[in-house]
């Protein structure tokens, strides 16, 4: 079975130690995490996580079942790719070479990104979108020289009636 990337959404109890439990589970079962995002939901008792991982069908099934065994995990859903929206945020600090400001601003506009800070030597650009778009933007900015960057990892949500609670 081929390895493929997949998305798992989780609703977890919002208290200390939960992130450790989940990341430790991945580590001890030898599952790889590509990215993990977490934030509190509208109900402060719960946080929602999006985990991007890789593996074959066996790994996928085991990840979901092992996560379901954790006391702090309330819901686990392996997200259907075609019914799921993925969004990620990236902040990238690009070297500002003389005469390149307008080109970079135009590039930011093309990626529907925002310039959020400017200094004589650098420009800070915030890009939001699908991970693929972020990769493309990154490749463009790389030519100008990336000083540093930070990505949040994708956050996932099902379309329309495809919700975590009833998925």
């Amino acid at each position: 079975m081929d390895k493929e990337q997949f998305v798992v959404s989780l609703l977890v109890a919002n208290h200390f130690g939960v992130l450790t439990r989940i990341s430790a589970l991945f580590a001890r079962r030898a599952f790889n995490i590509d990215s993990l995002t977490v934030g509190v939901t509208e109900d402060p008792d719960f946080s929602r996580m999006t985990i991007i991982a890789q593996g074959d069908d066996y790994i996928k099934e085991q990840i979901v079942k092992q996560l379901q065994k954790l006391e702090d995990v309330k819901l686990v859903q392996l997200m259907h790719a075609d019914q799921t929206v993925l969004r990620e945020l990236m902040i990238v600090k690009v070297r500002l070479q003389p005469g390149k400001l307008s080109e970079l601003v135009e590039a930011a506009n093309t990626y529907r990104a925002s310039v959020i800070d400017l200094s004589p030597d650098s420009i800070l650009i915030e890009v939001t979108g699908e991970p693929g778009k972020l990769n493309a933007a990154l490749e463009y900015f790389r030519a100008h020289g990336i000083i540093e960057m930070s990505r949040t990892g994708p956050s996932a949500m099902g379309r329309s009636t495809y919700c975590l609670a009833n998925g």
Partner: protein
Amino acid sequence: MQLSGAEILMKVLLEQGVDTVFGYPGGNVLNIYDELYHYSDRIAHYITCHEQGAAHAADGYARVTGKPGVVIATSGPGATNLVTGIASAYFDSTPMVAITGNVPVALLGRDSFQEVDIAGVTMPVTKHNYIVKDVNRLAHTLREAFQVAISGRPGPVLVDIPKDVQIASAEYEPQSAQQKRPDPAAREEDIARAAEAIAQAKRPYIYCGGGVVIAEAGEELARLADIADAPIGCSMMGRSAVSADNPRYLGMMGMHGRYASTKALNESDLLIAVGTRFSDRATGDKSEFSRGRKLLHIDIDPAEISKNIGVDMSIIGNVKVVLAAICARLAQQRHEEWTAEVAAMRESRDNDISMCQSGLTPEFIIERAGSRMRPDETVATDVGQHQMWTTLYYRFTRPRTFITSGGLGAMGFGMGAAIGSCIGRGKKRTLLFTSDGSFHMNLNELATAVTNGLPLVIVVLNNGVLGMVYQWQDLFFGGRHSNTALFRKTDFVKLAEAFGAKGLRAETREEYETCLAEAFRMQTPVLIDCAVDCAERVLPMIPPNKGISDIILK
């Protein structure tokens, strides 16, 4: 009413029906021990010599009673000493609640004296664990801990209570004991499909795991075997689920299984695996294990389905309920040819496995001690050759009478577990088979057995070597006995006497019989040091990741 955290712990223990705990006091559980002093008329506390012994005792207590075992230890070293015991309980799905003290909340995370993040340490070997930082959450957390421990597939839960939380007061409202959460309900269509597959099978084989003991489903399993006309094999953990007197019973299969049991599995066309996780010690070569047969897996834990062995069908639910449901759907089957084949396997000379036919053989030691035991009396073991010999030769007829560290395979398990089992059975006679290697690990608990006047018969199969590793070195490492040929000078008879127990020694069959007669007359701990030839092997043996064609018989 307003009570201290320590007293709330006592109240919740009583609520949950706990009247027996094991443990060891220390600086950060002083308040808990002060309450144990006040509650000593309702909660019996057994102090061991080492926290590991207490954890194994709580585990053994839980295994014989089916009730959660409770162990208490102080912070830091007290807590870390529990870890092997917790891990053993986790592997073998024993319900257990471990209570640890910790430094006051304000000192957490500062590397304070005797501070260890025990919740972090035990995360991989507990079903769940808690650090209670607010006394108002204590009663609820403890109740939840008991519920988690007993629900679904049971397991250990740890509750870490900082010292100031034990001291602080909160309102306490009595509640009744926690009920198990509802088991997952087996799907009708899964049961129908399983019944259909069993009806179509020509050569069915039932593989009984520890889950059958835990679910107390031995009767249902035996009934299914009758209706399906199938032989029964088992894992080590499933060893006491079905009586060895059952004519369908073939014994343990796998690495050190009975020849007939492994052979019948290998010739089957449908494997009905019940309450088991397909341990690598049971399956050997996984592709050979599955080749040529359909696999049906019944278990309460969905994560076990197709984890170690991919199966064709599964039913998730309480195995007792599921087995009864299958029986109700299944018409009586007849497999005369298969039954005859299995009978022939059982008669095969390959089942004769004793190397030495005379002298004080492991088989003789175990069978003769067994002949003096009542069916409802408990047998505990340590880990290694003697454990396999016990599994192979002892005739267990009642569930929960075989207490052994299966999944973790923790040498040193035996003394604590035997003590806990003995106490769990109302201080009735308990037999421990151990070895010079395993016994050396936690022999300190002899003091606990003596202090409590427990009727424990400790049979040490003393061959001077670390037998199982020694055997592997013989078979797979060119006979290079690296650090296993110890031949220590310990005089176990004097040792037993030094602890205040009775010590006996046997070098011949006659001496052993005399020792047994004396030992079984006593109502206090007695140790029999048995001289065993270090050339004795556990046979048959299927080398790791191999199949029945590679079986070593002689």
